[in-house]
């Protein structure tokens, strides 16, 4: 049991003022939206007039009609150049600067996604059908890598819960498992045994249903670059980056906790939950601080990466044990 006394709460855990102000902005926005909706103009007001775009032509198809999200941070966005050239994508290479070139000709169309396991609607969908399921939102999230660096990215997608609801999971479904494509021909990293391929990740059902958990197919106003997980990936902003599977071909609903790849590779270093937690060190390095790309000094890492709204998911759980 993790019961915190008042004195245990450090300043680093307190919701930052920015987030707090955002919440007020959110409420104010809701009020405004509500009134204007009455006037019959609501939806227009919510559609973002100025979406964050990649600086310089990225050549990727722009995504229209993006809605802004109250979950977006107002922190400075990391340049597109960095987010699309500094990638931990072991399917292509263990070198962070190589996936950008190696993924250049990666084929993301046609792309099928299998939805199966304990659901009423088992089906194989084309990724384009999935993208059309719900209206796309821009979500500017903090993204914290387990290695100790972080970025701020304007992702595009919709809550995973939209897909889950449509799949109609059965009561037996307790976890959602994501599988990345296995294609040695296109992914040179899969010809090595650095990790057990294909890459598998998972979330508990309530985590997967949380509105922050984003099914993502774009960033910076356009489609995802291949090296960032095209055509379909997860973004789970309160967990370390590796929990967000890329190039997903299968979403399976299961009754047992999935064996995620990094956990299988080093169980003492990478847990199933892997929530961002400054108080639980990686055995080989501290997680108390992080380096935001583009910044010289390190900044303190926030509990749940600053997404305190997920804390209730873990009530009564020892997060030191369930790291």
């Amino acid at each position, binding site marked *: 049991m993790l019961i915190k006394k008042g004195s245990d709460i450090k300043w680093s855990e307190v919701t930052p003022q920015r987030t707090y102000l955002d919440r007020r902005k959110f409420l104010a926005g809701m009020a405004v939206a509500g009134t204007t909706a009455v006037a019959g103009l609501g939806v227009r007001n919510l559609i973002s007039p100025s979406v964050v775009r990649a600086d310089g032509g990225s050549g990727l198809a722009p995504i229209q009609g993006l809605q802004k999200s109250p979950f977006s941070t107002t922190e400075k966005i990391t340049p597109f150049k960095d987010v699309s050239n*500094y990638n931990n994508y072991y399917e292509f290479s263990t070198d962070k600067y190589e996936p950008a070139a190696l993924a250049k000709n990666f084929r993301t169309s046609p792309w099928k996604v299998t939805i199966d396991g304990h659901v009423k609607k088992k089906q194989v969908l084309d990724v384009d059908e999935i993208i059309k399921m719900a209206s796309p939102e821009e979500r500017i999230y903090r993204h914290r890598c387990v290695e100790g660096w972080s970025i701020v990215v304007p992702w595009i997608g919709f809550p995973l819960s939209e897909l889950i609801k449509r799949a109609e999971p059965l009561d037996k479904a307790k976890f959602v498992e994501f599988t990345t494509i296995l294609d040695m021909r296109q992914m040179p990293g899969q010809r*090595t045994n650095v990790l057990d391929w294909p890459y598998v990740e998972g979330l508990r059902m309530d985590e997967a249903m949380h509105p922050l958990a984003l099914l993502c197919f774009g960033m910076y106003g356009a489609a995802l670059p291949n090296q960032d997980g095209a055509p379909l990936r997860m973004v789970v902003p309160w967990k370390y980056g590796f929990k967000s599977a890329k190039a997903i071909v299968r979403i399976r609903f299961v009754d047992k906790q999935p064996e995620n790849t990094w956990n299988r590779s080093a169980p003492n270093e990478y847990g199933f939950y892997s929530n961002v937690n400054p108080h639980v060190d990686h055995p080989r390095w*501290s997680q108390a601080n992080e380096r935001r790309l583009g910044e*010289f*000094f390190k900044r303190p890492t926030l509990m749940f990466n600053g997404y305190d709204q997920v804390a209730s998911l873990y009530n009564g759980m020892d997060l030191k044990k369930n790291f």
Partner: protein
Amino acid sequence: MRLGWKAYQQDLGANPIEVITHATGDWTLRFLLITLSVTPLRKILKQPWLIRFRRMFGLFAFFYVCLHFLTYIWLDKFFNVHEMLADVVKRKFITVGFTGFVLLIPLAITSTAGWIRRLGGKRWQTLHRLIYVSAIAGVIHYLWLVKADRTKPLEYGFILFVLLAYRVVVWLGARFVQKGALRGELLKPAKTLE
């Protein structure tokens, strides 16, 4: 040098400090291995003049390990002594890397001709065998810090193994020859070992 130029050009990628840390670590290991290959090369290739470069290579290794260490204490820890001590105690890859670094310090200090004279060749040589320990520590440091891909540290490890194995073979050979000579036997095996 290349690093400095790239930094000047702002071409160190998205995470320059990580690049600097890795590059200085890599060059330390490379120069340690180059230093260790001087003796085998000069003997096998019969090019005794190579020895003149050994000190320079060794000092290059020391130069890079200093930069590597400085990157760590400054750009990674910002001189936070408490955090650094915790690292050295808790994280074995840092413990072993730090050990390797500390062991190189006396070697750098005693690298001058004056020190060789003061210590006497034999003692100086014994002291400088610490480089073996340092190089092993360096490779282990690298091996323990990687997340999953052990290719590069194992490459360094293999080269180091070959360089150290050469010395073991030579040493065993010398002992064999010595014993043989004491017993008044023929010195034939020595020829194959040259």
